């Protein structure tokens, strides 16, 4: 027979392994449900189906497209090939302006209409989120 100490070791190892497997499973599963994908307006145009997952879109805010009402802001995000209408009610970051890059998080209504729930802050006049830079090419 194995000694008490060995038995304890085996039990301990078993518990550790089991808990590692369990937590990895939990983490991966909920990762699958909770990630937010980033798409450019052109990628949205090419989507085969619209699902109800939260996504992020990014590009330039089109010139003369911001319309402000007291409860809502509407604007167009473009990557110079395709564009998408965004409607948003919430707080906007200070550097949000026409002709500047922006990233919005929210839900697609259809291929050209987006309901944003958050506009992500940028912190510097010259800073452009890497995703946006890529989405609009090297302009």
């Amino acid at each position, binding site marked *: 027979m194995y000694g008490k100490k060995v038995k304890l070791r085996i039990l301990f190892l078993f518990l550790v392994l089991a808990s590692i497997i369990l937590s990895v499973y939990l983490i991966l599963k909920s990762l699958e449900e*909770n990630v*937010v994908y980033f798409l450019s307006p052109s990628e949205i145009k090419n989507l085969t189906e619209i699902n109800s997952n939260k996504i992020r879109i990014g590009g330039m805010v089109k010139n003369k497209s911001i319309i402000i009402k007291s409860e809502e802001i509407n604007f167009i995000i473009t990557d110079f090939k395709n564009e998408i209408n965004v409607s948003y009610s*919430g707080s906007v970051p200070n550097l949000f302006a026409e002709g500047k890059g922006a990233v919005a998080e929210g839900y697609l209504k259809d291929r050209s209409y987006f309901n944003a729930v958050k506009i992500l802050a940028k912190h510097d006049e010259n800073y452009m989120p890497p995703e946006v830079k890529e989405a609009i090419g090297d302009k």
Partner: protein
Amino acid sequence: MLANQIGYYSLISGFFFSILIIPVSIKNFNNKNQIIDNKIFSISFFQFFFVLVSFFGLILSFVNSDFSNEAVFNNSHTTKPLFYKISGTWGNHEGSLLLWLLVLTLFIFIFLIKSTNQPKKYRILTLLFQQVIIIGFFLFLLKTSNPFNYLFPIPKEGLGLNPILQDPALAIHPPILYLGYVGSSIIFSSSLAAVVEKHISTVWAKHIKVWILVSWIFLTFGIMLGSIWAYYELGWGGFWFWDPVENVSLMPWFCLTALVHCILVLEKRLLLSSWTVILSIATFMLSMSGTFLVRSGILNSVHTFANDPERGIFILIFLFTLIFFSLAIFFIFHKENNQKIVEIYWLSKETSILFNNWFLMYFLSVVLIGTVYPIFLEVLSDEKISVGPPFYHKLIIPFLIPFLIFMSIGPNLNWIKSKVKKINIKIILSFLFSLLISLLILRKIGYVGLINTILILAAFYLFFITIKDFFLKKFKNYSQNFSHFGFSLLILSILFNSILSSEKITNLKVGEKFSFREETIIFESIESTENKNYKSIIGYFKIKDKQNNSIQLKPELRIYNQPIIITSEADIKTTLHYDKFLVMNLVKDNEYFNVRYQIKPFMIWIWISTVLIIIGGLLSLFKRLYEK
């Protein structure tokens, strides 16, 4: 000019001394003598001294706005207030690494003079391991991020410091955080030295506990400062966003907190020695990776200003070398103390600490995977994703329940073996009491979901148990009581804060008003003033409640001159009961202001409870220091 030269050459001299330590201490190591050569103390002191001079040189360059220095040019401006000129020294990549180095050399010097009751060979080995890290940082500084790079022709004006960093909390946040990070390097070196010298013992545990506590206190305080800053400066009205950069400071904190607990087991029972060493290695590696992830530009985040692949590769290679060697040392030298058969029972303090560590490691892996998974996915498949708060909330909140329960029961168990009989009437009474309180509160605020309900109950349970222990056990374990009590309060205030917070976001012109719940918010006027390095627009808002009591809030917009950046300064009215938070943003070329008004209950209690947690650590530290 001169300060710059002095800074540079004194950095080189420091490097010279840090190399010199190695042969001298190897010679001393092989000596039969039982005391450390005085030469080592002096060389170590000079190493620290020259880095300190170099750091002062850099501060002077910043104060004098010496734009012949590249780091000053990139991060400072003549119109900046003196305070932010000084704090700009470590507000950038080069300066912050010099600060890392300064703390590294300071800590090893303190370690040498404070560890006289430890064996000589162990002390010298710790010094040697620490020197490896120090030399790595010297090379990194001199090769890829020299803070004293010379610019010619000398520019007339600097580029300025990012205005969101021009803030008192953020001026001291990096140094405090670094003290915590770098403290973990001493734990790392000394546990490797202890493994090699087979010095892992009760004596060692007692001695290293001081370092663990010091790092833990600084790290906790540093994270708290960052969080307070994010609350009032970023204008999103939250205090934790699961931003990768925040996560990166939280990960070593989980490790260090696990270490604070398992070092107790090592001290009292001489168990878990391998685990302690692994945790020590992991803590420091996470601190290093933190610096790497933040500074390499991999993380797309608030803090990413530097973006230089060469730096990233250097730190990455350095990091992997350290991981490889430390694990190699661990596997080659580590032997468990197998002489005596140790009994482990399920119902004992050590088992509950093991459970506590298990949960902390689980939280750590959740945060780790959530932070690095998007990076890997982008490298491997070019898909861009982000992992938001729901991921963390879903995986962490439910597991806080058993965590809290173990936190309440664990400290009441005995070492080695406890009897079930110990679960006595007082514990049951505390449970009933917390059940009653939770029910009363839920009646008032309505149903909040099953998990939240149980969580509130569990947090209240910990709350009452720690109060009971504090008074009934004659302050025997007051440091633990303080921290655990603080933690229960933290969970409760975060919970009620997130459940009861309410906000209204609207676009407003001057003179307009809006109503929210039972209050009317009137945008009365704006006023603009010129300041030294920014122009400010102050909005005057009056908030009237039903009884016609009114308060005034004055959020501010600052338009900085260099670089041209607009920041919002929220105005917050804090009471013990709730915070009223008002922030306005500018929509460019438009008469509308984007206004966000929030009522955040128990906000101040989040900070108070964090301070309580830190006080617990401080008490434990003082207790340890006075025991000697």
